[in-house]
């Protein structure tokens, strides 16, 4: 903490004058006036200054994760370990406008007795996706007589991550059951025990564990369970945040829709138990944590994995990404294609399905990939919109009209 003392020269000089008068002309009233001046303008100020140096302010909540429209209370604890009574302390947190609705949060004012602590609560409401930094804290400390007010800036910053909104797949004008992730294998190699397809009579060579005992008891003949044969294909979502690809008039809307689409797709895939990764030509905004994502050749990359931790990581990255104007999406595909060799299904979220992009997609299809292109702005290849669900190259037009945030 650093103090901001206010000039009290005049009153200190007057106090010295009173001391001089008291010493020269004596009497208790004169001495009393001198003592009063010394107490008020020197001793009390010194004690308050020393006590203020030991004042402790800490945030009780660490990093905070929110979805848009979420409201969260953040708590600060102010502790006075000294014997000095603070007449009043006021604290205000510097909260970005994107975390406030309507009025600014009220400044908290309270008195703090000796060896006590006070909790101060602020409320934030997430309005927009992003990674925000709260603080530093403005702390003001005053005395009982209006002689001195001290101001401090406490560098106790706190990061607030606001995830992009997540929509249901249907709300993005996409088919309710997208044909990616785990799907029926064309070759019956790996029966999936979670997908019961039916029953049949026992045949010689069937494994004992595949017998359906309740059905056997009911029919008095041995019945065997039949399973679907599936394979799990790893998915990678490619996000295009190259500024030049977005129309200037729809830049903000377009980029936010692209990010929202990626978040919704990743959520859909991971909730289904698939492995999913992310590759993007975006850059991370200020305050974003760099260690959550591997940066390779100027691109953000998160390797495909399953589970909620992976979803959180991808959402955290998506909260802090922003568009850039150095690396084109086609360059990204060229540079990062080899990094996603293991992934069978590529999901591209782009503003437009340009001919170059479609051509590049066909190239990947020829190499055995399934490419699904999600267009957030303008669809150029209308014929691909109506491809069959089994088609290796499909185009979807994203729209959030009438969407309900999940």
């Amino acid at each position, binding site marked *: 903490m650093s103090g901001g003392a206010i000039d009290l020269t005049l*009153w200190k000089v007057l106090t010295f004058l009173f001391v001089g008068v*008291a010493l020269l002309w004596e009497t208790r009233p004169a001495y*009393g006036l001198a003592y009063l001046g010394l107490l008020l303008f020197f001793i009390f100020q010194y004690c308050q200054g020393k006590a203020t140096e030991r004042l402790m302010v800490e945030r009780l909540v660490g990093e905070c994760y929110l979805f848009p429209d979420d409201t969260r209370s953040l708590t600060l604890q102010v502790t006075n370990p000294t014997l000095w009574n603070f007449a009043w302390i006021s604290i205000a947190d510097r909260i970005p406008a994107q975390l406030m609705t309507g009025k600014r949060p*009220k400044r908290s004012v309270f008195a703090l007795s000796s060896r006590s602590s006070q909790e101060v609560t602020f409320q934030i409401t997430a309005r927009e996706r992003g990674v925000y930094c709260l603080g530093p804290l403005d702390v003001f400390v005053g005395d009982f007589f209006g002689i001195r007010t001290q101001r401090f800036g406490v560098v106790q910053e706190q990061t607030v991550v606001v995830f992009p909104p997540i929509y249901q797949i249907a709300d993005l004008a996409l088919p309710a059951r997208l044909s990616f992730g785990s799907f029926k294998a064309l070759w019956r190699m790996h029966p999936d025990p979670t997908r019961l397809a039916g029953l049949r009579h026992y045949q010689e060579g069937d494994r004992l564990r595949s017998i359906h005992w309740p059905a056997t008891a009911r029919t008095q003949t041995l019945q065997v369970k039949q399973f679907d044969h599936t394979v799990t294909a790893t998915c990678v979502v490619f996000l295009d945040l190259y500024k030049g690809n977005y129309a200037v008039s729809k830049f903000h809307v377009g980029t936010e829709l692209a990010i929202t689409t990626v978040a919704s797709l990743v959520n859909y895939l991971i909730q289904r138990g698939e492995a999913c990764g992310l590759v993007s030509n975006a850059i991370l905004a200020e305050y974003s944590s760099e260690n959550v994502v591997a940066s390779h050749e100027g691109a953000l990359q998160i390797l495909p994995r399953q589970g909620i931790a992976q979803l959180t990581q991808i959402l955290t990255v998506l909260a802090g990404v922003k568009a850039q104007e150095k690396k084109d999406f086609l360059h990204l595909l060229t540079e990062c294609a080899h990094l996603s060799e293991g992934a069978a299904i590529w999901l591209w979220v782009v503003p437009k399905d340009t001919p170059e992009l479609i051509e590049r997609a066909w190239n990947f299809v020829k190499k055995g990939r399934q490419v699904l292109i999600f267009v957030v702005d303008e669809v150029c290849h209308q014929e691909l919109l109506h491809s069959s669900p089994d088609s290796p190259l499909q185009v979807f037009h994203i729209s959030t009209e009438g969407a309900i945030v999940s």
Partner: protein
Amino acid sequence: MKIKQLLPALAALFSFSIVALSAQYIGLLFPAFTVPFWLWLILLTSSLESAYYATYYLNRRTPILVRFIELGLWLLPVYFLCGRVIESFLWPGFLVLISWLIARGYGSQLAFMERVADYLGDQGASTVSWEYESLASTDYHDLPIKYFWSRLYACGILIALLAIAFHNRGGSLKVAEAFHLTVLGSVALVSGLALQAGAYLFRLQILWGYAQADVSPSLTRRWIKGVATLLLLVLFVVNVAPVNYWPLTAQRISAIARGLLIKGPRVSMPPMTSQDGSPQFEGEQDLLFPEEVAPGPWGIILALSIFFVFAGLAFLILFVLGFIVVHLVGAEVERLKGLPKLAVQIYSGLQRALCQLFHAMRNARTRLQVRGNIPDSNAFAENVVKRPARRRAAAPENVRIMLRRIAQEAGKKGLVFHPALTPSEYGRMLMDHLPEASRVVDGFFAGYHKVRYSNQEVSISEQENLLEIGADIITKIENLRGDESHGKVGGT
């Protein structure tokens, strides 16, 4: 109690103690100016009246005549108590005037502080930089605090000078006189500092209100506690700390200087006297107006010029005086139009203050009764019979207080009386949670509506009955706490 209600009392106490202390010292210096004991009472009451009146009612539109009437009300008893002797009246009257004026100044300043909105103008609340309330700040808004500091120190200097004057005259104090001075000095110190701290808190509260700060409810209580601790410390230091220990005092320095001058070289100067013995400077001549110059045309012209100049000056002075008188009278006549309104305001203010005092006492008594959980209806009724007039005036308010008490107790259980609820709706909510007492609750709220909203005269016994029912409901609510000690009742 709001801090504003306390500040005029502190200001009056400070004004009184300073004037009384000064009068004591002046009486010691000049025994002819000793003040009688009864004057202290008038000093204190006049200060109180002046401070409260200025804080709550005085404004620029108040007629000057009112001020004279006010002052006359205090000076007239002093005149009569002085035996209607003008010489005896002058000094006590002057003291009353001074005390009244000091208190008036404080009161006006408190009223000025409250009118901060007039000076903020169109500035938004967020622009109020109340954090920099301090002595040294050159900001316009901290002037009121400086005002208090300046007065505190000016009064302190005055007392110190009087004490030094008395000390230098070699006066000695009797025990009773010393005790009086110590008590008055302590009262002045404590009330002055308490006024300073209170005024600062008052100022901050106003600004916090405008800045829409979230002020802790316990701040005022802690503030008063903290100030009391500091005042005790200051009082202890000022009264107990050693004094007169410095060896090099002004008296000793002057003695040393005098000794040096007496022993120093002497300068012999020739006597500057004339032949007749009176001192005269060389070349000095009597300045005489030659008599032969007086008559003649030039003399007449000069006389006329002087006459016209003086006549013009007299006319100008009369014109200015006339203008001022007309302006003042005109403004005063305008202000006098508001006199009836002012009288009504003062009357209603006094009535309100008395009501508040009375209700506070009644509330305390009701609380005691409720805490006892034994509503002694016989004693209560007996009391009512003894004081019918007071009971009749206060009973409807008591029913309201009882409702507040019920809401307060029920609020502790989570049955909060939300501002959006009507008493009837709140009653239904209570009935839901107190099914065994639903008839009692219904009866209370029906009675409440009758007392509060109907034009029907509610008898004293009915009101008493309502209060008893209210106390019963509170008991039921408290029992509810016993039943459900693990948490709050309901989710209202």
